[in-house]
């Protein structure tokens, strides 16, 4: 059977999680929770990232937020993990 292609939403969520892992310590704080895809924690992290970039804080993966996540950037975490 042909492999089921990830929907665009799933791809975007995967990108968002990788981004939040790397720059907003999602993984560290979420630890085993991330396995169960605890949405509220992810929403919190999205809100934190939106606040940092001056976006509308919705906790939702809207197009502006996704666009920022796709912009080339520095690999140092934004807040908290630096050090």
């Amino acid at each position, binding site marked *: 059977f042909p492999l089921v292609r990830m929907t665009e939403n799933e791809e975007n969520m995967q990108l968002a999680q990788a981004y939040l892992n*790397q*720059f907003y310590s999602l993984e560290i704080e979420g630890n085993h929770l991330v396995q169960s895809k605890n949405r509220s924690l992810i929403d919190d992290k999205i809100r934190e990232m939106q606040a*940092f*970039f*001056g976006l509308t804080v919705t906790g939702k993966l809207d197009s502006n937020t996704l666009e*920022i996540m796709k*912009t*080339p*950037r*520095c*690999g*140092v*975490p*934004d*807040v908290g993990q*630096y*050090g």
Partner: protein
Amino acid sequence: YTLPGWRKYNLTYRIINYTPDMARAAVDEAIQEGLEVWSKVTPLKFTKISKGIADIMIAFRTRVHGRCPRYFDGPLGVLGHAFPPGPGLGGDTHFDEDENWTKDGAGFNLFLVAAHEFGHALGLSHSNDQTALMFPNYVSLDPRKYPLSQDDINGIQSIYGLPKEPAKPKEPTIPHACDPDLTFDAITTFRREVMFFKGRHLWRIYYDITDVEFELIASFWPSLPADLQAAYENPRDKILVFKDENFWMIRGYAVLPDYPKSIHTLGFPGRVKKIDAAVCDKTTRKTYFFVGIWCWRFDEMTQTMDKGFPQRVVKHFPGISIRVDAAFQYKGFFFFSRGSKQFEYDIKTKNITRIMRTNTWFQCK
């Protein structure tokens, strides 16, 4: 967001490897200027070293690399990262070699990314001020404009304070042709002329014409530094001028593109850091380079250093047991100058034929 910074103002940096995307000299310049962005507003000073462990070790890496706990992700995405002040990885700065690094607006401007990463290496975290250099996302600013915002300056000065008051710059002295103690930085022929370099100026004389012209070096070659150290005319109607580990090639009144280059590309060993003097023998097309008490010989035809060098100057030019300031060839003779003395030398009979003042060329009374 700042962390305790370095506990010293004088920091060293070392470029471990170079991206093939840019000329080596362009990478050196981008890194140096990326550091100067911060030294302009703090007491920090940065010195480049070429071996050993520097405070800031700079490298171009891809994907997972060495001991670094962070990784790169191929083209786009993450462009670079750096570590806060401290021993070991502290201060180290890595650039993603999978990016296209440039020195202008295309691709990713290395100077801009470097200046941002060095902010981390000095103790700054990311800023959420969209106009700040320490804003995490790459913004293609005009690299010729000073990139720090007030937010960046407040941050770095909260760690290191303000720059020290620069000592009042000494008024540049104007050399005088008939000063009995006049010494030269470098001398070269140039077609039917002889040029004598000193500080920011040069004198020109023409074969068998008595008048002497006095010019600013920058009026011919604005991109050349002052205080050159050696110069010679090669058999291809070009002049090469040297300062520290760099040399420039000049055709007519244009400095050729892609210069300066490193003197080590000519075949000098790494320990040679500057050239004292140089002269090309028009007959044999061999160029002699003088470094301290040593001389090298370069074959202009094969563009390689001759074997059997370096030799002691006094061994190859009996009688010349001095360090040479400047040298040139005129009407078949070599002229070596040292301080205010000049030695006319017959290279066939290998002996000094006359000893004169260095500025006898200027018809001083």
